């Protein structure tokens, strides 16, 4: 794109020469399908907003493709490993390609759920007690002895989760101690470290945060009420199985605290542009941080678009604005 003389000229240039962006979706992870769905949605919304958006997979064609036809900026709609753990962003940094979203190091931190919880707790936030251990610890010290300690410390029910990853894949609620070994086995299939977390009963919230250059701002929280009681993969991606309420049906002061928590998480972890914090509000109105997503889902049934909509904004325009900022900053 031509170097603009002044901001008004930039707009004039853009009217004639629309922003050219690449939306990355797919990848080689469990969340490929969700990512393709997010990416398609974003590309359509961007096109509607007048942006020249191309959908691409993160594969061996990507870097040569970006070199041959440079994009003004990249939007990462990849979920899971490469797209969220910072590695792809580190490569884009090497290639000098501007992208929307958090920098590589911050992504690594958010991707590691126990690490992110630790940062949030150090900053004074509330998060359910947890322990995260690799398979080798159970093998070496005896799984029975370690699980016994975990149950004694954290009580029941417990949430058993892969230490990284999203879309609720591999997440289980364990209410009976006899179900715990099997839950550990199935969770370890997703990765080598499992996080066991004290279960907090309450209202599940997803709080989206957006930063358009004036500091991170929380959008209205989305409340999720799965019919089955557990917000697992099926509840998440089958329309009709979960009720979503935006804004959440919580008192204003609780909504305000939830927004503060999400903004604090965004700042403390060094996130940029957009994030989505998942939290639970207990019976006392206390907001417990669960995890934060640097690449929130953007599908038809995802919470980030619901929050954008509830705030009265257009998803395509909002993402176009984030892309424009990154493209301009890179010039």
């Amino acid at each position: 794109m031509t170097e603009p003389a002044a901001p008004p000229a930039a707009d004039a240039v853009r009217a004639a020469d629309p922003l050219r962006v690449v939306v990355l979706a797919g990848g080689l992870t469990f969340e490929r399908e969700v990512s393709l769905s997010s990416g398609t949605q974003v590309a359509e919304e961007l096109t509607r907003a007048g942006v020249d958006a191309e959908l691409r997979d993160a594969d061996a064609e990507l870097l040569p493709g970006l070199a041959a036809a440079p994009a003004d900026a990249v939007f990462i709609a990849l979920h899971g490993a490469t797209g969220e753990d910072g590695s792809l962003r580190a490569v884009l940094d090497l290639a000098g390609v501007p992208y929307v979203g958090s920098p590589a190091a911050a992504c690594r931190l958010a991707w590691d759920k126990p690490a992110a919880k630790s940062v949030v707790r150090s900053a004074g936030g509330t998060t359910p007690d947890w322990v995260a251990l690799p398979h080798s610890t159970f093998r070496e010290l005896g799984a029975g002895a370690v699980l016994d300690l975990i149950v004694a410390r954290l009580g029941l029910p417990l949430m058993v989760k892969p230490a990284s990853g999203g879309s609720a894949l591999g997440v289980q609620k364990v209410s009976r101690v006899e179900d715990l070994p099997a839950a550990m086995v199935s969770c370890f299939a997703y990765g080598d470290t499992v996080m066991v977390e004290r279960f907090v009963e309450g209202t599940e919230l997803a709080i989206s945060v957006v930063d358009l250059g004036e500091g991170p701002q929380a959008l209205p929280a989305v409340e999720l009420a799965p019919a089955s009681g557990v917000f697992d993969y099926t509840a998440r991606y089958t329309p009709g199985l979960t009720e979503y309420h935006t804004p959440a049906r919580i008192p204003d002061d609780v909504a305000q605290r939830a927004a503060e928590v999400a903004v604090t998480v965004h700042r403390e972890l060094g996130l940029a542009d957009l994030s989505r914090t998942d939290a639970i509000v207990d019976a006392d109105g206390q907001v417990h941080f669960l995890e934060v997503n640097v690449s929130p889902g953007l599908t038809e049934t995802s919470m980030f678009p619901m929050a954008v909509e509830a705030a009265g904004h257009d998803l395509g325009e909002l993402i176009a604005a984030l892309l424009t900022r990154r493209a301009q900053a890179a010039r």
Partner: protein
Amino acid sequence: MEARPYTRQVATLPPGVPPGTGANAHPHPHSPVVPRHPRLDPLADRYAARTHGMKTSEIRALFSVVSRPEVVSLAGGMPAVTALPLDAVGSMIGELVTGMGAQTLQYGSGQGDPRLRERICDVMALEGITDASPSEVVVTVGSQQGLDLVTRVFCDPGDVVLAEGPSYVGALGVFQASQARVRHVPMDDDGLIPEALEQALLECRAQGDRVKFLYTVPNYHNPAGVTLSEERRVAIMDIADRYDLLIVEDNPYGLLGFDREPMRALRARNAQRVVYLGSFSKTFSPGLRVGWVLAPLAVREKLVLATEAQVLCPPSLTQYAVARYLDTQPWREQIKIFTELYRERRDACLESLEAMMPAGTTWTHPDGGFYVWLKLPHGLDSKLMQPRAVNAHVAYVPGIGFYADGGGREYMRLSYCYPEPDQIREGVRRLARVIEAELDLHSTFDSVDTGTFRAVSAPIPWHEAENIVGPANGNRFEDGRA
């Protein structure tokens, strides 16, 4: 905690939004928002009961990586269509349009093109069905539509369908959509077990269940890879007579044997008790979607009415394509080319399984068709193991998909029809490592006796988090972008 408080005027956002992000920008970015239905689907309460089983599944999600070239897929059952003489088939189909467009691009008969139905009778003669008349044949959109028609014609909600355990997943979907109840009948290396069939019929009779038919894939079974032996064919037809049982014989793979002549079909033994489903998907092309049903005349009558309600008539162009292919191309030689290719891939699969699978793993030894049915070592669950396989870039179909009753967790289906032999060997190598890692995990957790755990009362309060494992706290803002 320091944070910018949330306010309701988040409408401060669009200052960042550049004016006119483009010529086609949304005309009313701040038009009143129509609130979403809380369940995202305002029609959620209106769906028919038969759709209630239609849910998004994790298995499906994990499958989406299969399309990437890095993944060796032993999951899909795709025929090796590139082994066809594509140039010859291409010009043949082109001529059908340029020379016969008035017929091939027009509606046709609901029962299917008469010329094709004649040729279908020739194909069925290869498996001993010599008494079929073209008037008893109904052409369908793949045999899948044939099975759907047969099920619609025979099954009311709650009726029982007997089916092998395991059974073709696409058939289970049809039965579920018709709200029929599936009762599985066990099989072994010689196919469906006649004694078990008789037992199932007696139990259904005792419970007052209405058994509408037995659904069976007698040749190179999907997913089990086994073939019903000659003795058992005789025994099962005898049971059908004694118990007044209708049999739906689904035979897409019958001509794909590696070492022997096709076996005599069940339909060849009894024209009144057997409804036969055939397909050109494996002998020619699945993309053309041409299959058929051979049924007694009274049944055929209802099938034609049912198909007219569904699709009016099967596609004319693809019917002409199949008929022309059978008329003008060396199709029996082409089937030999296919089976030689599949035999080579079967060999690669069985040899590498033999060489690499950990002890306690067993599998079937197909002598035709597409599939090996593998049983995992005791305690392993192929569905729960699937994420590990995706990480290892190998895909299979978990056994649970082939049972209507939640069974099959310790099994998986491996397809050798599509990947090249080298890819198959690499896929089996990866799968062996996945199973070994899973065995290792089980050896850690299987012996845990939770009964010995100390009493769980109030959890011990825990204030400080010093128990973090993993890369925490380091280099948080190292590249300082943001």
